[in-house]
């Protein structure tokens, strides 16, 4: 039972002091912003890690600041990749689009003043911070206990995500403003909502797996067969027993985790494309169904990774079919984006560029995914580099593009100022070219790696080019990472000196968050509760003065506006 006295009295008693205003505030906007700050810090930390990884790969003897001082060993390298992965996946890709933007804009977009359980929300945020500290700390203490600390941190993150997911789904179900029926919900809200449902199912599973693993480490239980036990068993038992259970539980989570990161990004992209094409979302209902399909299939394809890694679960064919069937909702989404763009007067600002970049990356990453889905091809083609390239392109970079697009879009609402457009566009183009230069050659490396199996083949000479490709990748990643400095400068400068957004609705968008001042007041909607009169994407209507009709505009008002416009 939640103690619920906080929300109601906030209006009357303005909070003072840094702690109560920023640190222990239960306001959804403060918590959402805090998540975004945390993600921003993590993404730069994670990017520094990836730089170290690439330098280590190309110049293994190089003296690196963090790596050398802590012992330049394979163990440290593994720890480095783990930290890079866990920071990026958990604190950036999972937390930023869902908990960050979601906390800030989900209540605003559905006309709720608060999430359903604000205290739980605050708890979830600080648990996330604790898990961030734990994950980073696990890297710094280089001993056996660091792995235990890492598992504890992941478990805490799971618990936080569960609380967050519970909050989001209940908020969407029960706290929508008057008139905000399900078909009128913006696609972003649909994506956050479906993602919360998906998250609630899969983070429980990872939590259970973590609990078992932790108990194995701390109390030497036998959930996952220990290495001592394995060593004493006949070979046939060993081959079967070691990873089956952990892999099953872990991939059950991890495959769906990809969609947990991607679902809100689908929503954000759809929203941006529609707004800046000045056209309604093409086949909006179908898009919502496709998002449901992504959630459902994403939950079901946990077995897919097991045959890609050479295992044989009970039915590779079934999983292969399921994984391929994910192509269907993906194709629907793609068709809708292209349909929305078709013959549209596209406004090519930075937010839109990032949304288009997302589509491009998602498409090219998805094409290489087809190789991994076919289980006969997967066994032949999969090597680490191919998977790394595919995974980064489709999940890591694409999702980051959606996050950046959303940031450029909502920055005026968040801070009342705009990000600098020319600098943003420059940052976009360098990053866009950069990530292709990094991850496309990585696919080739993966394919070349397998040609080495037969030295007589003509491909063997190509294989020699491998090290040159590796160097190219490392140089490209250096440039890409430094280009992010442009973004950081733009972000910090605009925060203080950026052009004022001025009006409530600078993008002439339709959803409810644009009806309130920027940044929104503490109680979001002021004295009167918002009322919603129409769908979320009413652009380019023929009989209205403007080319859009916001959701909060009553039919009488739009008629009045039309008369005054004529």
């Amino acid at each position, binding site marked *: 039972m939640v103690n619920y006295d906080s929300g109601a009295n906030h209006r009357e008693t303005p909070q003072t002091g840094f702690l109560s205003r920023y640190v222990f505030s239960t306001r959804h906007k403060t918590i959402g912003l805090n998540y975004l700050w945390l993600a921003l810090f993590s993404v730069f930390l994670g990017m520094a890690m990836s730089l170290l990884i690439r330098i280590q790969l190309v110049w293994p003897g190089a003296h690196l600041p963090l790596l050398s001082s802590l012992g330049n060993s394979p163990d440290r390298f593994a720890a480095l990749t783990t930290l890079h992965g866990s920071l990026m996946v958990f604190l950036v890709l999972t937390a930023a689009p869902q908990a960050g933007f979601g906390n800030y804009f989900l209540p605003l977009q559905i006309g709720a003043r608060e999430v359903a359980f604000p205290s739980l929300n605050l708890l979830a945020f600080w648990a996330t911070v604790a898990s961030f500290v734990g994950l980073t700390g696990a890297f710094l203490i280089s001993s056996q206990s660091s792995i235990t600390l890492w598992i504890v941190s992941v478990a805490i993150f799971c618990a936080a995500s*569960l609380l967050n997911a519970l909050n989001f789904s209940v908020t969407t179900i029960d706290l929508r403003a008057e008139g905000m*029926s399900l078909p009128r919900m913006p696609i972003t809200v649909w994506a956050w909502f479906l993602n919360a449902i998906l998250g609630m199912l899969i983070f429980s599973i990872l939590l*259970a797996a973590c609990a078992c693993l932790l108990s194995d480490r701390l109390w030497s239980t036998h*959930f996952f067969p220990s290495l001592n036990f394995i060593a004493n068993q006949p070979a046939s038992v060993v081959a079967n027993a070691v990873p089956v259970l952990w892999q099953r539980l872990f991939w059950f989570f991890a495959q769906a985790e990809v969609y947990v990161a991607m679902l809100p990004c689908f929503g954000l992209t759809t929203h941006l494309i529609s707004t800046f094409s000045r056209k309604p979302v093409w086949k909006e209902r179908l898009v919502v169904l496709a998002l449901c399909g992504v959630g459902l299939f994403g939950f079901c394809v946990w077995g897919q990774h097991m045959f890609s890694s050479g295992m044989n679960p009970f039915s590779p064919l079934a999983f292969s079919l399921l994984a391929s069937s994910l192509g269907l909702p993906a194709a629907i989404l793609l068709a809708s984006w292209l349909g929305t763009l078709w013959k549209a007067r596209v406004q090519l600002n930075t937010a839109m560029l990032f949304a288009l970049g997302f589509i491009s990356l998602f498409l090219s990453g998805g094409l290489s995914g087809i190789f991994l889905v076919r289980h006969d091809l997967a066994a032949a083609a999969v090597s680490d580099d191919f998977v790394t390239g595919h995974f980064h392109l489709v999940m890591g970079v694409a999702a980051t593009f959606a996050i950046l697009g959303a940031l450029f879009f909502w920055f005026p609402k968040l801070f009342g100022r705009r990000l600098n457009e020319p600098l943003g566009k420059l940052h976009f183009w360098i990053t866009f070219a950069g990530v292709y230069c990094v991850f496309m050659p990585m696919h080739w490396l993966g394919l070349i790696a397998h040609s080495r199996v037969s030295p007589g083949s003509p491909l063997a000479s190509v294989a020699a080019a491998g090290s040159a490709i590796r160097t190219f990748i490392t140089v490209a990643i250096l440039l890409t990472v430094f280009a992010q400095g442009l973004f950081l400068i733009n972000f910090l400068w605009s925060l203080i000196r950026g052009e004022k957004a001025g009006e409530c609705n600078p993008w002439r968008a339709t959803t409810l968050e644009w009806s309130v001042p920027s940044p929104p007041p503490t109680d979001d909607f002021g004295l009167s509760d918002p009322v919603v009169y129409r769908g979320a994407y009413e652009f380019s209507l023929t009989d209205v003065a403007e080319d859009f009709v916001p959701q*909060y505009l*009553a039919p009488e008002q739009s008629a009045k506006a039309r008369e005054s416009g004529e």
Partner: protein
Amino acid sequence: MPGTTAVPDIELVVEDLGGGGGGGPTPPPAGGGDGDDGNKRRRTGGPPSPNRYYTGIALGIVSILMFFMALASAFLVRRGTSGDWIPVHLPPVLWLNTLALIASSFTLERARRSLSRLDLSGFRKLWIVTTGLGALFLIGQLVAWRQLVAQGVFMASNPASSFFYIFTAAHGLHLLGGVAALLYVLVRKFDNTRVALPTAAEIASYYWHFMDGLWVFLLALLYLGK
């Protein structure tokens, strides 16, 4: 710009909403307390709808169920793939515990029936009995652990015992939360809060019955799956 002027305008036009043009079949927010003066949809300080607690507990139950299903599937897979599985002989006290827990579900429902008849003292009495039975169950589980330890069956003995301990421990922790919820409903004054006492009791009862059913399922799994 319509965007800049919409907020004050809404109040002027809301009275026409009943005409049904754009409103659609959306129920007004329950408990808003502004049904009488249809003129302005100003926000009021009244209690919000308790729906969120019903939805919250339902989704929470699904999530907890998923947690235990992951453990259960791990149990079945682990049992099938290894040669070091030595079944746990369930201590007989578990059956007594189960009886106590099932009985607590009945007393809980009786308590809620007294509450609906506005018989507050009867409600409190039965509610205390329910909480006591829950505590009894937890103590019984500890006794079962002690008996297993006396037999030399520890957490680290073999996979079957590991699973027995994690199932009972995870369920016990969740049930402890249930006992806390029961105590909260008993102690809290519901005069000036967002949920009324019957609502709080109902939500606590959902969780309690779920814990009850979950235990029966886990016991069946442990008994049949040994």
